[in-house]
C-alpha cells in the first residue's frame, strides 16, 4: 500500500519532465530519422517516402562531401593539437597545485572555454586579418611574406583549428586535472623511491593510468569538433562577405539545405550521418574502455 502510494508520487512528479523531454528530445530525434527517408521540400504539400535515396544522393553531393572532409579535418586537427598540450599543461598545473598561482593558471586556461563563441572568434578574426592583423605584422617582422589567412582554402581551415583548439584546451585541462587528483599518490612515491624522475613518472605512470580520461576527452573533443559551426561562420567569410562559405562544415551545409534550399528531408539525412559519426565515436570509446577493463 505504502509502496504503491510512493510509486504514484514518483510517476506524478516525473510526468511533467518526461512530457517536456518527450516533446523537445525524443520526438525531434525520431522525426529526424523519419524525415531522412522522405523527400520533403517545404514548398510542396506531399512528402513521398523515398527510402535511402537521400543518402545515395549525399554520396555524390560535392558540397556535402566537401563539408564532411573539412569537418573531419577540423575535428581531428583540434584533437591532435589539444590533447597533448592539455595533458602537459594539466600535469604542470597539478604539480604546482599548492602554489598560490594554481588558481590563476586554471582560470586563465579555462576562460576561452566559457566566453561567448562569437566575440572570441572576433578577437581571432582580427589576429588573422590579412591587412590589419598582428599575425601578418609579426611574420613581416621576421621577413616572412604576409598570408591571406582567412581567404586561403587551406590556411582558413588551419585558422579554424587554432580557434577551436584555443577554446577546447581549457575543458581538457580541467578534466585532466581532476584525473591527476584521483591518481593514487602511493604509486608515485614508490616510483620516486625507485629513482624515477618527474618526466619518467609522467610518461610511464600518468599517461597509461589516465587512458580512460584521455579517451573520454578525445571523444568529447571530436564530437564537438564535428558540430563546429559558429567558428567557421565568423572566421571564414568569403570575399563577398557571405559567412561560412569559405570553409564549408557539416552543420552549415545541413542548415543551408534545410532553410535556403528548402530540402528538409535531405538535410535530415545529413543530420543522420552526423549522428552515426557521433555514435561510432562513442562506441569506439566504450569498447576501448571495456578492453582495458579485461586486461
Amino acid at each position, binding site marked *: 500500500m505504502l509502496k504503491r502510494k510512493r*510509486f504514484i*508520487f*514518483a*510517476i506524478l*512528479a516525473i510526468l*511533467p*519532465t518526461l512530457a*517536456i523531454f518527450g*516533446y*523537445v*528530445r*525524443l*520526438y*525531434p*530525434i525520431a*522525426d*529526424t530519422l523519419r524525415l531522412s527517408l522522405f523527400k520533403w521540400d517545404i514548398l510542396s504539400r506531399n512528402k513521398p517516402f523515398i527510402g535511402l535515396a537521400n543518402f545515395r544522393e549525399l554520396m555524390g553531393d560535392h558540397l556535402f562531401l566537401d563539408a564532411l572532409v573539412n569537418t573531419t579535418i577540423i575535428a581531428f586537427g583540434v584533437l591532435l593539437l589539444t590533447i597533448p598540450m592539455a595533458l602537459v599543461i594539466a600535469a*604542470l598545473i597539478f604539480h*604546482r597545485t599548492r602554489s598560490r598561482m594554481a588558481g590563476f*593558471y*586554471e582560470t*586563465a*586556461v*579555462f*576562460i576561452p572555454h*566559457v*566566453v*561567448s563563441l*562569437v*566575440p*572570441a572568434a*572576433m*578577437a581571432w*578574426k*582580427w589576429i588573422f*586579418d590579412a591587412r590589419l592583423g*598582428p599575425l601578418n*605584422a609579426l611574420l613581416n*617582422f621576421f621577413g616572412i611574406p604576409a598570408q591571406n589567412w582567412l581567404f586561403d582554402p587551406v590556411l582558413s581551415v588551419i585558422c579554424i583549428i587554432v580557434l577551436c583548439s584555443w577554446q577546447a*584546451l*581549457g575543458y581538457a585541462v*580541467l*578534466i585532466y586535472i581532476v584525473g591527476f587528483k584521483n591518481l593514487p599518490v602511493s604509486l608515485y612515491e614508490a616510483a620516486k623511491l625507485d629513482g624515477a624522475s*618527474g618526466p619518467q613518472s609522467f610518461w610511464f605512470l600518468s599517461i597509461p593510468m589516465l587512458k580512460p580520461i584521455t579517451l*573520454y576527452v578525445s571523444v568529447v573533443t571530436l564530437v564537438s569538433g564535428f558540430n563546429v*559551426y*559558429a567558428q567557421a561562420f*565568423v572566421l571564414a*567569410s568569403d570575399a563577398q562577405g557571405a*559567412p561560412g562559405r569559405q570553409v564549408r562544415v557539416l*552543420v552549415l551545409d*545541413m*542548415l543551408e539545405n534545410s532553410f535556403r534550399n528548402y530540402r528538409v528531408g535531405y*538535410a*535530415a539525412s545529413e*543530420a*543522420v550521418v552526423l*549522428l552515426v559519426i*557521433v555514435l561510432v565515436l*562513442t562506441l569506439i570509446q566504450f569498447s576501448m574502455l571495456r578492453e582495458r577493463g579485461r586486461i
Partner: protein
Amino acid sequence: MTAEIATVDIGPTADELAEGRRLRRRKRLTNLAIDVFLVIVSLLMLLPLVFLVANAFKTPAEMLAWPPTILPRDPTLANFSAVLGETPLIRWIGNSLAFAVLSTVAIVATSAIAGYIFGKFRFGTLNLIFALFLATAIVPFEVYMIPLYFQAKSLGILNSVWGLLLGYLVMSFGIFLIRQNVIHSIPDELLEAARIDGAGEFWIFLHIVLPLLRGALGALAVLAFFQAWTAFAWPMIVATTRTSYTIEVGLALFQTGFTVDLGRLSAASATVLIPSILLFVILRRNFVQGVASTGLKE
C-alpha cells in the same frame, strides 16, 4: 634502553646535508621554470581577449600600429557610441539574458525533480525511463534541431524568447548530475524518518531534499546559464528578426556587413565579454565543480 639508541643515532654527515641542500635547490629551480612556462601559457591564452578589449578603445589609426598596444594611447569611446547607435545591442543582450535565465530555471527545476525521483525511487519502469534519458544524451543538439524548429513554428513561437527556450528546457547531463548527488549525499534513513513523522512526499522534496542539493544545483545553474548564453546554432535559426536576435547571433550577423570596421566589432564584443568574464570569475568554483563532474560520467 632508550639512552642506548640515542647514542647510536648520529646526525646526518656534512656530505648528506650538502646533498639535501643541492636537491632542494634543484627542486626550487624546476618549480620556477614550471611557473614561468605556465605564466607564459596563461598569458597567451588571455592575450586574444585582452587585445579585443583594448581594440575596442582604439582609434582606427592605432589599430594598425605595430607592435599592437595593450593600453590604448588615447582611449576613445567612439566605437561604443557608434555600435550602440547602429545596432540594438542592448536589446540583444536583454534577449540573451532573458533566454539564459529562463533556461537556467527550467533546467534546474526539471533536473532537481527528475534527479531526485531517479535517485531514490528505484522502480523498474523508472529505471527504464532513466536509461532512455541517458541514451539520448549523446545525440548532439545539431542532429535534431531542424524538426524542433518546425515544432516551434507550429507553436507560433519563432522569433521570441519562448522559441529559444524550447531547445533548452531540459539537460540530460543535469538530471544525471543531480541523481548522482542524491544517491551519494541523501541517506535513505533521513527520508524514512521524515515519512514516519508523517511528512508528505512533496514536503520532503521541498524541505529536506532541495536544501541538501544546494551545492549541486548551484553548479548546474551556472553550467546551464553559460550554455544558453553562448548558444549559437539554435538561436541562429529560431530568432531571425533583428529585434529577436540573441547577442551571439546579432554580433555574428553584424560582422558580415560591408561597412563594419574591426574597432566597432571589438567594441560590441567587449560589451558582451567583460560582464561574462566577470561573472565567470565570481562563479568560478561552482562552474569548475560542474564541468569537472561532466568528466566523471563513467
